[in-house]
C-alpha cells in the first residue's frame, strides 16, 4: 500500500525533523529504513520510539552488562515487569519507574500518574498488585517551592495507591540541594500471581484483533516541541495540556477488568499505553511477537474532536490498555469490560505481512517495513570521562575538617543528625498512605524493609528501595555497589533472603562525558554487587536528562529489592523489643567519614571517598544474619546506613514509639577510632542485633567469618541511650532524640500551605 502525506499535515523540513529530536544521522537512518521521505505521522512515531525513554539508545549496551539470570527468575528485563518464582507455584512481578519530569511540572498529577503507570505494568503481567513503594529526592525543605513539590507528590502517590486499594508500604525520601530544580519520583509496584498465569505482552496469531481498552484518548502529553505548522497552531498548542491527569477510579476498574480478561483466556497479550501511548505499546508488542500489525486511528475512542492520527498515536492519556484478543472472542472481551463500565474498541489486527502500518479509515498514514521498529533504533556509546573536580572532592582529607564547638557533646550531634529531614522519621509521608489495606502488611513503613505475607502460604516477601546519590556522586562504582548491598541488608534484617532487584537509574545528560562515566561506573558497581549477592536484575528504568539550570542531580541509581521469607515466624523487627537483651554488632566500624550525612548536614561538606563496600563481606553478613534469625536467636536487627552507628542505635531505641527502649552501649573495642567516625561514619556491612542468646549469634557470625562483638544491653523505656568508648562517653535521653527525629518534617510541613510559585525547569523523564 502506498503512503501519501495526509492533507493538512506539515511538510517535512529540516527544522521539523530537528524539533522532533532526530539528529541528521538518525534522519538518514529513517530514510534508509523507509526508502522514501517520512510522512508527518511517521516522523512523530519515530521521534517517540527513538526517544531515549523508549529506545534506551544511550543506555542499552551498558545495561546489557547486568546479570539477569537465576533459576528463580521467570521473566527478566524486556517485559512490562520482571517476575521471579517464590515457590509453591507462586510468583512475584515487580518493577520500578521514574516520573521525575511530570512531577517537576505538576507534583500531584505527575506523581499520581507515575503510580498509575507502574501499577499497570505489574498487573499486565497477570499479577495482582500487593504493594507499592516510592523513592523520592527533593531539594532542601527550606524552599517553599520544594515544600510544594514534596507535599504535592506525596499526596499524589497516596491518593492513587489508596484509591486502588494497594498498600504503600515503604520507600525512602532524601532531601539535598542537588535535587532542587529536578526532583526524583520513582515508584515501585509488586504483584502476586500464579506461575502458570504469567502472560507476556507479545502480539501473536495472525488475524487476532487488537483492542483499545479503558479511558478515551485526549490530547494529553503529546511530545514533539512546538511545531510551526498549520495543524499545530498556537491555539492548538494552548489546547494541548502539559500534564496528564490521573483517574485512579478508572485505574481500579482497569485493574479488575484486566485481571479478569487475563484469567478468561480470551486474550493473548495486554500492555499499558504508557510513554508514547498507542505507538510504543503497539510497536513493542509487535516486536516481541515478531509479527506485523495494522492500527486504524479512526477507530480509537477519543475525548476531543478533530484529533489527528499523529495526536492519537502519541497521546499519553492515562488509564488505557492495548489488548490482543483471540479472533472471535471480541464479544466476550467487551462483556468483561462492560461489567466494569469500561469500553473496548477493535482498533487493529495482527497481520502476516511484516509491516507496522497505521490507517486513518481507508488512508495509510504510516507504514514501516519489518516488525522491529522499536529495536531497530540507533544505539550510542557516548564518551565517558570523570570530572576531575569530583576526583578532587573524593581525595579531600575530610578528617582535617575541625569539629564544631557544640560537637564536644555527641548527644548534640546525634540529635541534630536525627533532625536532618533525610534521616528523620518519614511518618509525615507514610501516614498519608494506606499501609494496611489488603490485610497482608506484616511490617509496614518505618523499619528496614516492609514485609507482606503471601496469603495461603507460610511465606512472606520483604521489600526495600535504596540508593545514595551522594556516594555515587563521589564514587560511582562504589555507590552503585552500596545501593545493592544496602537493599540486600535491609531485606535480610527483616528475615528475608535477597532474591532479585529492579532498578531506576536517574542521571543527567548522557551526552556529557562526566555523566556517562557516572552512569557506566554505577551500573558496573551494581552489576558486581548483584553477581556476588546473587540478586539478578529483572528490569528497571533509565531516566536521563535530570538537570536544571544549576546542573545535574546527583547520579542516583535506586534499587528496589525483593526478598523471600520462608516462614512468617522468621519476620524480624528493626527495633529493640526486650529489656535485658544483649546488643551485638555484626561487622566492624572504620574511620571512614567521606560522603556521610554527618559531613553534609553538620558541616555542609560533600567530600571524601564514600565508605568501601566489600561485597564478599556483605554476602557473608547476610548469610550469618539469616542463619542467626533461622535459629530463633534474633530479637531485632537493623542495619547501619545514613548517620552511622549512633543514628542506627537511636533508631533501634525509638522504633516503637509507644514502647521505646534505652540502651547501654560500650564501643571500647574501637576506642582507637576518632569519636565522630566511630559514631557517625557510615562504614558498610554492619548490622545491630538484639538477642537473648548472644552466643548463638556470635557463633553464626563466626561460621561465616563475620566480625561480631557484644556491645551492650537493651534497657527499659525510661532509660537513655548511653554510649561509651574508653574514657569517652555521652548520654542522650530518648525524649530529646525522639523530639528531633519525629518533629523535623512535621515542624516544616505543617506550618502553612505551600504555594505553587514559579515553575521550575526540568528535563528528565
Amino acid at each position, binding site marked *: 500500500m502506498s503512503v501519501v502525506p495526509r492533507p493538512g499535515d506539515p511538510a517535512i523540513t529540516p527544522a521539523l525533523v530537528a524539533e522532533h529530536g532526530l539528529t541528521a544521522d538518525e534522519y538518514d537512518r529513517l530514510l534508509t529504513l523507509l526508502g522514501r521521505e517520512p510522512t508527518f505521522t511517521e516522523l512523530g512515531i519515530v521521534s517517540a520510539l527513538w526517544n531515549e525513554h523508549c529506545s534506551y539508545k544511550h543506555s542499552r549496551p551498558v545495561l546489557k552488562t547486568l546479570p539477569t539470570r537465576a533459576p528463580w527468575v521467570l521473566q527478566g528485563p524486556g517485559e512490562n515487569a520482571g517476575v521471579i518464582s517464590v515457590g509453591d507455584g507462586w510468583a512475584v512481578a515487580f518493577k520500578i519507574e521514574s516520573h521525575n519530569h511530570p512531577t517537576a*511540572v*505538576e507534583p500531584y*498529577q505527575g506523581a499520581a500518574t507515575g503510580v498509575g503507570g507502574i501499577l499497570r505494568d505489574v498487573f499486565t503481567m497477570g499479577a495482582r498488585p500487593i504493594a507499592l513503594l516510592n523513592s523520592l529526592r527533593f531539594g532542601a525543605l527550606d524552599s517553599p517551592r520544594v515544600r510544594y513539590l514534596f507535599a504535592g507528590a506525596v499526596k499524589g502517590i497516596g491518593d492513587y495507591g489508596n484509591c486502588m486499594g494497594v498498600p504503600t508500604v515503604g520507600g525512602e525520601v532524601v532531601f539535598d540541594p542537588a535535587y532542587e530544580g529536578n526532583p526524583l519520583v520513582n515508584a515501585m509496584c509488586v504483584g502476586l500471581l500464579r506461575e502458570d498465569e504469567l502472560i507476556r505482552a507479545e502480539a501473536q496469531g495472525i488475524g487476532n484483533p487488537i483492542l483499545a481498552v479503558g*479511558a478515551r484518548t*485526549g*490530547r*494529553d502529553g503529546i511530545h514533539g516541541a512546538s511545531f510551526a505548522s498549520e495543524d499545530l497552531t498556537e491555539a492548538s498548542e494552548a*489546547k*494541548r*495540556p*502539559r*500534564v*496528564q*491527569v*490521573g*483517574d485512579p*477510579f*478508572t485505574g481500579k476498574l482497569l485493574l479488575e477488568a484486566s485481571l479478569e480478561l487475563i484469567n478468561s483466556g480470551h486474550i493473548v497479550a495486554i500492555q499499558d499505553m504508557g510513554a508514547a501511548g498507542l505507538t510504543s505499546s503497539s510497536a513493542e508488542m509487535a516486536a516481541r511477537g515478531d509479527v506485523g500489525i495494522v492500527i486504524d486511528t479512526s477507530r480509537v475512542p477519543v*475525548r*476531543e474532536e478533530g484529533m489527528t492520527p499523529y495526536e492519537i498515536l502519541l497521546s499519553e*492519556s*492515562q488509564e488505557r490498555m492495548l489488548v490482543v484478543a483471540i479472533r472471535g472472542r471480541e464479544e466476550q472481551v467487551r462483556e468483561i469490560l462492560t461489567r466494569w*463500565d469500561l469500553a473496548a474498541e477493535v482498533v487493529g489486527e495482527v497481520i502476516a505481512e511484516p509491516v507496522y502500518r497505521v490507517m486513518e479509515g481507508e488512508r495509510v498514514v504510516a507504514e514501516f517495513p519489518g516488525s522491529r521498529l522499536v529495536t531497530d533504533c540507533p544505539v550510542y556509546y557516548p564518551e565517558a570521562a570523570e570530572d576531575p573536580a569530583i576526583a578532587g572532592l573524593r581525595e579531600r582529607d575530610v578528617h582535617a575538617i575541625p569539629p564544631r564547638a557544640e560537637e564536644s557533646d555527641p548527644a548534640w550531634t546525634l540529635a541534630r543528625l536525627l533532625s536532618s529531614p533525610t534521616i528523620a522519621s518519614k511518618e509525615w509521608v507514610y501516614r498519608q498512605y494506606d499501609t494496611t489495606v489488603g490485610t497482608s502488611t506484616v511490617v509496614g513503613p518505618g523499619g528496614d524493609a516492609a514485609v507482606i505475607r503471601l496469603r495461603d502460604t507460610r511465606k512472606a516477601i520483604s521489600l526495600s528501595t535504596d540508593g545514595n546519590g551522594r556516594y555515587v556522586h563521589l564514587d560511582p562504582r562504589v555507590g552503585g555497589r552500596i545501593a545493592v548491598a544496602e537493599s540486600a541488608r535491609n531485606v535480610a534484617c527483616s528475615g528475608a533472603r535477597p532474591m532479585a532487584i529492579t532498578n531506576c537509574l536517574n542521571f543527567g545528560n548522557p551526552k556529557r562525558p562526566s555523566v556517562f562515566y557516572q552512569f557506566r561506573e554505577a551500573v558496573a558497581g551494581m552489576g558486581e554487587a548483584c553477581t556476588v549477592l546473587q540478586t539478578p536484575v529483572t528490569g528497571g528504568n533509565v531516566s536521563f536528562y535530570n538537570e536544571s539550570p544549576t546542573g545535574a542531580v546527583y547520579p542516583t541509581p535506586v534499587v528496589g529489592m525483593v526478598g523471600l521469607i520462608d516462614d512468617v515466624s522468621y519476620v524480624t523487627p528493626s527495633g529493640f523489643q526486650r529489656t535485658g537483651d544483649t546488643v551485638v554488632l555484626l561487622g566492624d566500624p572504620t574511620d571512614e567519614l567521606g560522603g556521610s550525612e554527618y559531613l553534609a548536614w553538620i558541616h555542609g561538606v560533600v567530600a571524601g571517598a564514600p565508605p568501601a563496600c566489600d561485597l564478599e563481606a556483605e554476602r557473608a553478613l547476610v548469610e550469618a544474619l539469616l542463619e542467626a534469625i533461622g535459629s530463633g536467636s534474633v530479637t531485632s536487627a537493623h542495619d547501619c546506613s545514613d548517620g552511622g552507628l549512633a543514628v542506627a542505635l537511636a533508631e533501634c531505641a525509638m522504633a516503637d514509639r509507644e514502647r521505646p527502649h534505652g540502651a547501654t552501649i560500650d564501643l571500647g573495642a574501637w576506642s582507637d577510632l576518632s569519636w565522630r567516625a566511630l559514631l557517625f561514619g557510615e562504614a558498610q556491612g554492619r548490622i545491630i542485633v538484639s538477642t537473648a542468646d548472644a552466643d548463638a549469634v556470635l557463633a553464626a557470625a563466626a561460621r561465616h567469618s563475620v566480625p561480631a562483638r557484644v556491645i551492650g544491653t537493651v534497657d527499659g523505656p525510661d532509660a537513655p541511650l548511653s554510649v561509651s568508648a574508653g574514657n569517652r562517653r555521652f548520654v542522650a535521653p530518648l525524649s530529646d532524640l525522639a523530639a528531633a527525629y519525629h518533629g523535623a518534617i512535621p515542624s516544616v510541613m505543617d506550618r502553612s*500551605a505551600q*504555594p*505553587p*510559585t514559579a*515553575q521550575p525547569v526540568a528535563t528528565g523523564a
Partner: protein
Amino acid sequence: MTSFTVAVRIVPRRGLLDPQGKAVADALHSLDFAGVQDVRVGRYIVVSLRADNAEAAEADVRRMCEQLLANPVTEDFELENARPLAAGATS
C-alpha cells in the same frame, strides 16, 4: 478600609481530563438525567478581605489566585465582582 467579599471560580483547564466531572456526569446519566452532555467540577472560593475599595479588593484576590489559589498548570480562574461585606457577616 472597608470589608469586601470576592468570589473566585476555579475550573479545570479545557482539554485536561476531569475525572470528577466525568464521574458526576456518569452518575447523572444513571439517575436518568439523560440530557446531561458534560460536567466540569471546579472550586468556588469566597475571600473576605479589607481593602480601600472594590477595585483594590479585586486586584488583591487576583494576585492571590495567581500565587496560591489556582494551579496555573491545570486550572483557569475567574473573579466575580467584589461586594461590600455586610458588617459582622464574617463567620
